[in-house]
């Protein structure tokens, strides 16, 4: 009974992504980093932006904050003019969440990042680049699958996107057989576009299936 209550209350968390803005955010973030990678690839060999330190500083000190603030504005605009007038306004706080659950989430995220960062190195060490690539691809498909499981249960068609993402990555692995980091760009581009397309489709579906109430309704 209390589990049913908890599940019901979780609807409010899923509501945050009812318009697909969460997926679009993920897509735009990944896309920006992929485009940065492509840009670095066409720069001259002696350009300072090809060095790891300069590119890291640019990515984390400039690109990431610009993306975060820029998208915060876009997301708020979508919410203000599309979502809130149609299905209502919600402000989230720390309600119902204890501090240890936030710390646990942070620790799990750190462990996942460290494991993922080292998969490449381990795979190179054991001459198993294809294994490293498979783990990397599986991680990305799993990340999307978890997202729709917890944030977008109301859209069963997204299960098809999980399958399409897996098949697409598999196809790219055949077309671009090398397994080093540079050859991952087409995969990441595909992943970014999948997230973005999923978000745009969710927004389109949301707009089609909802209408703002008449002005005198409240």
């Amino acid at each position, binding site marked *: 009974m209390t589990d049913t*209550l908890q599940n*019901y209350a979780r609807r409010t968390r899923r509501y945050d992504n009812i318009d697909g803005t969460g997926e679009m955010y993920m897509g735009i973030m990944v896309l920006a980093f992929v485009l940065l990678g492509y840009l670095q690839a066409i720069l001259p060999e002696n350009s300072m932006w090809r060095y790891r330190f300069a590119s890291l500083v640019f990515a984390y000190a400039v690109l990431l904050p610009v993306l975060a603030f820029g998208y915060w504005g876009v997301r708020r605009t979508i919410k203000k003019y599309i979502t*809130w007038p149609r*299905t*209502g*306004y*919600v*402000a989230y706080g720390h*309600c*119902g969440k204890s501090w240890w659950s936030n710390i646990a989430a942070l620790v799990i995220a750190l462990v996942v990042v460290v494991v993922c960062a080292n998969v490449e190195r381990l795979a190179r060490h054991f001459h198993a680049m294809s294994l490293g690539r498979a783990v990397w691809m599986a991680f990305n498909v799993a990340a999307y699958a978890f997202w729709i499981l917890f944030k977008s249960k109301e859209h069963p068609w997204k299960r098809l996107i999980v399958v399409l993402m897996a098949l697409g990555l598999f196809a790219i692995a055949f077309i671009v057989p090398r397994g080093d980091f540079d050859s991952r760009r087409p995969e990441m581009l595909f992943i970014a576009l999948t997230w973005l397309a999923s978000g745009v489709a969710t927004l389109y579906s949301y707009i089609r299936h909802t209408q703002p109430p008449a002005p005198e309704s409240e």
Partner: protein
Amino acid sequence: MKEQLRAISELDRVIHEPGRLMIVALLAAVKECDFLFLQHETEMNKGNLSSHLARLEEAGYVEIEKTYRGKVPQTLLRLTRAGRTAFDQYRKGLKAAF
């Protein structure tokens, strides 16, 4: 068995009503929301929702604030501290009962 019966009899009747339980469960998960959101999520009509909210406000569980979003009137709703405590106790009571 006696303890279970007592737990059932001690359940908060204001929250126990299904419509109000839905409202309180939703409000407990957010900082604040508006009337339209509750209407969308509970699928209740305006009259029903208003009367349940009035009952919850009367019990001191919900705070209702009439405001404007631009030129559009907006009714903001949030659970009070007493409301949160009552909901936590209700959940514990329900667990003990079953």
